[in-house]
């Protein structure tokens, strides 16, 4: 048996999914968190059944890629748990009626039940049940309240199959149901609602947005650096270095396997950022340098998501984003891109038009540094001084703006209008925030670690074969002539294709000047996304679009790198 969880966006499908399957799914407070479908399973009686978390949709006539996924999934389900936002019954019931008309057995979960009383909403569940003709259970997915009762009622799922209605008839039917089953009372504005309005009004919202983004940036850099300086770096030096030195001695201090595993010794000792051994630099970059930034970045992002801030940011930025060929909601995949391009490219599915998806995906690949690239920027350029970090980020932001402007002007078509629901602010739960952080950090390590270790392994082999010298000589005119970098830097650029963070270990030993480091970081960030992002781009938008994006990428990188070389 297969159970589908369906409902409007942002009603808590993923939270309910996590509850009933015990599988962790990413939960946030905005429409479109789930863009693909997540599978899990649960025990129902003695039977093991499949449960699918379907992306949210307002109706079964899809308007975006994510909603299309939802409509298609319906054909493959045996039972639908229709999750309904109890605080917004009217709009949610439209989809409920559509589902019933399709003839699938339905159980309704009246979610966010805890929110109804302080909003002055009373719902007569027994009445609603008899009007709809299917079981209705009240739930609070984030706390787990009512979940057991809901699961117990799944076998009662029924399909009264009303005659198909026209849209107007369906809305009229919804109207009839809510007049009978729901009563609304007046209530006072809470402080959360005042803050809600303040962050949406341009006059107060823009200062709030600037403050929120600046605070996030400084928190990420400050906390990330703090963790490195006081925790991860000392741990590596005090605990791991002796182990590695012993290994180095055991391997005889040099030779192929020594260089692959431990790397080259500098002045007789290991330099974690330069030695380039799989077990030294490989582990150090991932755990000591990148992981701290990943942790704090996803913590901050998770808080913003769970509070419900991102849709407000989307509204404030909409008019600017329009000039770049996107609408405000594109800020969500773009912000995810500051963590990792892979989920960001998948999140572009929440956008309606192909044109917009292409523009957003291209900008994410070119101009938005992922956490690994940011770790590289902070690690390499940060040591030279604040102003250089500012230059790198400033240049990337300018590239984002200008490339967006050009793409908007040169690609046929127009950017679609924004139409989104602004969720109420919710106080995030500690458990929810930590669970999501864990899912994302674990996902990152699982993906990144094998690639970075593999890449360093390949690099050491290629080094010993002298392949890099040949490539470096061949590309010297471009790299030295245009970018003003030593020809050895090309190796970092090429390896950056596998993962950006490895470049830390490759640029660090070259002894570059501050200006060269700035150029190196900008070029590395802009030039080719890493191999994982590359594959996802092709999967999501097609190979032709990927080729187009790559042409744009190469041209932009050469222009920007060349200009920086002239200026710096």
């Amino acid at each position, binding site marked *: 048996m297969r159970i589908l969880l369906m409902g409007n966006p942002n009603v808590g499908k993923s939270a309910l999914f996590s509850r009933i399957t015990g599988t962790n799914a990413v939960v946030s407070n905005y429409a479109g968190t789930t863009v693909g479908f997540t599978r899990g399973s649960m025990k129902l009686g003695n039977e093991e059944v499949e449960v699918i978390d379907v992306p949210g949709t307002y109706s079964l006539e899809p308007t975006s890629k994510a909603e299309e996924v939802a409509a298609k999934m319906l054909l493959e389900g045996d039972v639908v748990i229709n999750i309904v936002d109890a605080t917004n019954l*009217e709009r949610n019931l439209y989809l409920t009626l559509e589902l019933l008309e399709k003839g699938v057995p339905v159980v309704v979960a009246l979610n966010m039940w805890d929110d109804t009383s302080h909003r002055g909403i009373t719902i007569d569940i027994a009445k609603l049940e008899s009007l709809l003709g299917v079981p209705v259970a009240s739930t609070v997915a984030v706390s787990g309240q009512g979940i057991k009762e809901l699961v117990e009622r799944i076998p009662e799922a029924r399909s009264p199959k009303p005659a198909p209605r026209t849209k107007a008839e369906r809305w009229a039917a919804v109207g009839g149901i809510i007049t009978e089953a729901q009563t609304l009372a007046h209530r006072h504005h809470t402080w959360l609602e005042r803050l809600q309005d303040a962050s949406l009004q341009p006059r107060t919202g823009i200062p709030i947005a600037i403050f929120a983004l600046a605070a996030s940036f400084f928190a990420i850099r400050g906390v990330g650096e703090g963790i490195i300086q006081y925790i991860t770096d000392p741990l590596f030096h005090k605990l791991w270095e002796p182990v590695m030195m012993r290994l180095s001695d055991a391997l005889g201090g040099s030779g192929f396997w020594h260089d692959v595993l431990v790397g080259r010794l500098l002045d007789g000792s290991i330099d974690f950022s330069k030695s380039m051994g799989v077990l030294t630099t490989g582990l150090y970059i991932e755990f000591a340098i990148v992981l701290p930034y990943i942790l704090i970045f996803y913590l901050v992002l998770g808080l913003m998501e769970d509070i419900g801030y991102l849709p407000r940011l989307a509204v404030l930025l909409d008019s600017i984003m329009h000039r770049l060929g996107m609408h405000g909601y594109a800020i969500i995949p773009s912000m995810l891109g500051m963590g990792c391009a892979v989920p960001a490219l998948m999140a572009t599915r929440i956008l309606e038009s192909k044109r917009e998806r292409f523009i957003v995906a291209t900008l994410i690949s070119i101009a938005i540094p992922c956490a690994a690239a940011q770790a590289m920027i902070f690690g390499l350029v940060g040591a030279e001084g604040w102003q250089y970090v500012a230059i790198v980020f400033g240049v990337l932001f300018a590239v984002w703006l200008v490339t967006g402007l050009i793409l908007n002007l040169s690609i046929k078509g127009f950017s679609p209008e924004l139409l989104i629901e602004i969720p109420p602010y919710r106080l995030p739960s500690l458990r929810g925030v930590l669970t999501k952080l864990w899912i994302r950090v674990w996902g990152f390590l699982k993906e990144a670690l094998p690639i970075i270790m593999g890449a360093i392994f390949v690099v050491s082999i290629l080094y010993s074969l002298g392949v890099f010298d040949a490539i470096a000589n061949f590309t010297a005119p471009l790299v030295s002539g245009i970018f003003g970098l030593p020809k050895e830097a090309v190796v970092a650029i090429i390896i950056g294709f596998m993962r950006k963070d490895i470049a830390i270990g490759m640029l660090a030993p070259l002894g570059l000047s501050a200006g060269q480091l700035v150029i190196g970081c900008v070029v590395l960030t802009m030039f080719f996304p890493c191999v994982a992002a590359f594959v996802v781009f092709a999967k999501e938008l097609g190979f032709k679009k990927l080729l187009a994006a790559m042409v744009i990428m190469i041209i932009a990188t050469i222009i920007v790198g060349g200009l920086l070389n002239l200026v710096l």
Partner: protein
Amino acid sequence: MTEKKKISICELRQGQSARVVEILGGHGIAERLNSMGIRPGKDITKVSTSFMRGPVTVSVDRCQIAIGHGMAQKVMVEVI
């Protein structure tokens, strides 16, 4: 008010309430607005002002919807 004038929600003042009377423009736009609860006969309140042709946010059924400026110009209402 005796005479009721049809205006778009862009022209509403912040905090003003109105009843949706018509959604101009294509089927697609009406459809999408419809599924989010904005359709003729519904009462809405404008929540936020927009600037630089930014989106208009309205509340309908205790839920806030942000509508891009171009689309908002097509949502015609009567002040109530």
